[in-house]
């Protein structure tokens, strides 16, 4: 097990360094960002002085070597815009996204398990059809569109929820709903599919013949066995949830890492871009390890 994790970790470190290098060179390709940080009417002299101060005037490969050297010393650079440590900024924003993503995913996962399982017990029935349509709609809906329409309907027209921002539990409802919609839609499909397969498997017939209660069969036997593929998909979707978070966070003003990253990219705040990428990639790596461990727990046949 340990050696397996070690191997995964070394692969991931290579991936993360590759990603950091890729992003480093890509962002620097856009040239010297000095003029973005200074007022539009600042002089050429001022811009050159600024570039020199922040090392933007150096050749790219020197900048990269500097970056690597600092990285080894755990110095992730300063945000040019915010005048403080880039990693500090990234780590401040990260828990906000984590909370949002965790709740959204947990909600989507639970609802999908329940709805998908019930739908699979009576394929073609009214419930099945409704769930199918709703889930497919959820998976097909443009999230930004749902978010804005949601604000107009629930916050402005009916004044039930706050428009945006963070605070009490009422602030969570819309972001979580929008964020959970897509994973829910996709997961229901997977749960339904695997459950259909599981329910027609021989051991279920045996269980049925033994006279076990239907609820017990569905949630006790079939669900346990169809959980593995569902968890794989859920894992992939959790990583992809950051995509949704970018949109949801920027519409709802949620101070998470998705919004931080898009702002940093727009403002060419390179150190912040690098730090957010490092944090996100590390989080996704840990998530993948957790999923592998979960796999081992759920399926005794798997040994690393």
């Amino acid at each position, binding site marked *: 097990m340990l050696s397996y994790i070690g191997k995964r970790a070394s692969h991931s470190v290579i991936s993360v360094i590759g990603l950091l290098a890729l992003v480093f060179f890509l962002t620097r390709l*856009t*040239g010297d*960002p000095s*003029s*973005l*940080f*200074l*007022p*539009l*009417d*600042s*002089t*050429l*002299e*001022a*811009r050159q*002085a*600024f570039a020199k*101060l922040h090392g933007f005037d150096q050749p790219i490969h020197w900048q990269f070597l500097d970056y690597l050297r600092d990285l080894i010393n755990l110095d992730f650079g300063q945000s040019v*815009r*915010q*005048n*403080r440590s880039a990693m500090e*900024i990234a780590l*401040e*924003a990260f828990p906000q996204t984590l909370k949002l993503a965790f*709740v959204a995913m*947990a*909600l989507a996962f*639970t609802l999908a398990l329940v709805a998908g399982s019930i739908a699979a017990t009576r394929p073609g029935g009214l419930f099945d059809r409704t769930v199918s349509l709703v889930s497919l709609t959820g998976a097909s809906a443009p999230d930004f569109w749902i978010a*804005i329409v949601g*604000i*107009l309907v629930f*916050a*402005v027209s009916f*004044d*039930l*929820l*706050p*428009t*945006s*921002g*963070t*605070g*009490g*539990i*009422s602030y*969570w*409802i819309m972001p*979580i709903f929008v964020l959970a919609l897509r994973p829910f839609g996709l997961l229901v499909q997977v749960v339904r599919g695997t459950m259909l397969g599981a329910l027609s498997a021989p051991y279920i017939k045996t269980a049925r013949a033994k006279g076990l209660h239907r609820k017990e069969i569905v949630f006790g036997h079939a669900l346990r066995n169809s959980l593995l593929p569902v968890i794989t998909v859920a894992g992939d979707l959790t990583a992809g949830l950051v995509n949704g978070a970018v949109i949801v966070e*920027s*519409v709802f*003003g949620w*101070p998470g890492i998705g919004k*931080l990253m898009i*702002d940093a990219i*727009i*403002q*060419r705040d390179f150190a912040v871009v690098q730090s957010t990428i490092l944090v996100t990639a590390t989080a996704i790596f840990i998530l993948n390890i957790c999923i592998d461990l979960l796999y081992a727990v759920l399926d005794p046949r798997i040994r690393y």
Partner: protein
Amino acid sequence: MGKTSKITIFAAALMASVSGAAYAQDASKAIKIVLPEQPANLEPCGTIITNVGQILSQNVTEALTVIDAKTGLPQPKLATEWNRVDDNTWRIKIRPGVKFQDGKDLTAEAVAFSIKRMAGGTMTCNNMAKFGDRKIEATPVDALTLDVKSDRPEPIMPTLLSVVMVVSPDTPVDKPVNNPVGTGPFKLASFDTQSVALERFDGYWGAKPAIEKASYVWRSESSIRAAMVETGEADLTPSIAIQDAANPETDFAYLNSETTAIRIDTAKPPLNDPRIRKALNLAIDWEGLTQLFGNDVKRASQMVVPGINGHDETLKPWESDPAKAAALVAEAKAAGVPVETEITLIGRNGIYPNGGEAMEAMTAMWQEAGLNVKLTMLDVADWIRYLQKPYPEERGATLLQMQHDNNKGDAAFTIPIFYRSTGQYSTVSDPALDTEVDTALAASGEDRTKAFQTIFAKARNDVVSDIPMYHMIGYTRVGKRLDWRPDITTNSEIPLANIQLKN
């Protein structure tokens, strides 16, 4: 399944909270302002940047002078009076009895420190941009008197001093700060990724503001900001889009000191021919275009708004005359000008509300007039490359969407940038015009005004290096609790001390 049950509880809690959601303001003397953008930092030397200035200016930090919104003239603030000792020197009297928020006294030493921090070159200071390439130096004469010297005659020094934010002498000289300490009526209470909070400073030298606490949050969508004020989540939001400003009770229009224009690159054919440049102005259906910005906007004929020294009220904006435009193009063509050459119109995403639509509309109008104009919308970083010198080598014939903000009362913040050959945005290179600009900048009083007006007239009638569009209107939504109106300075500052609470 412990996880599941936890989630069920959470979901139930979510449901329960829907009905009882309450987001009232905790205290009646606290207000919440929602800005379009997160302030990058709270460095007092960056107050000319809108999102920093709207929080700090006049609230946390104050300058020696302040520009009067109506006359454009400098008024006393931390300076009580000033006079010109010789061509290059101004003598400033400092207001007595003023304390910084950290308890230090305001002295000539402290002001000299602030000027040195800004102009000394030990750190990046955005506000220095207003000084161009001037060098200034401050020397205390006595405890409350200060001499400010510039490297060339500077008739508008008191105006320039309105961007020098005076900070406590304990502020680090060599690095930007996020915890500014000034002399203003409010001090910084907290600053994090979600909000900035200010508290009333009881040792303030002036009148006590009605508001005790102010917090600032930020949302980029105009419709959401407008909704926040409408639902009472926030009390004030500057710059909402025209289509959101539908409620005359809460939404106020104000001339916001911004002038929009298209800059013409006069160096590249066919744009090097004045006939084509005039045709570009004439071919626009101005009345139709105005629909995009609302009927409150004012057509511009020059790059500064009324009220700025040098603005010429008699200068007429270009009329729409497609026939004349076509004739000019035909005439140029006959004279051998390559009118078929592709002209690139470079727009900037999100530059001002409906800016993208305006570019699409203008492109269509020019194409109608037989000009080969192609639209390219760029993001700020790429757009800046075309805005500022040195321009990209391979640029070809370009038109550039731009917006110029001058709320400093004097055309000196506009003319040299646009029309002098050394100007950062200039595409003009005319030694005679350069001399004229230099003379105007050194002049004062009536002569100065006249000289600026002559240059604007020349730019409009002969040079035609731009297509002035509109003096823009901003819209602010002010919650029903507040008694406050926006004015021309609102884009750079929102002085909390001016906000009164109703009842």
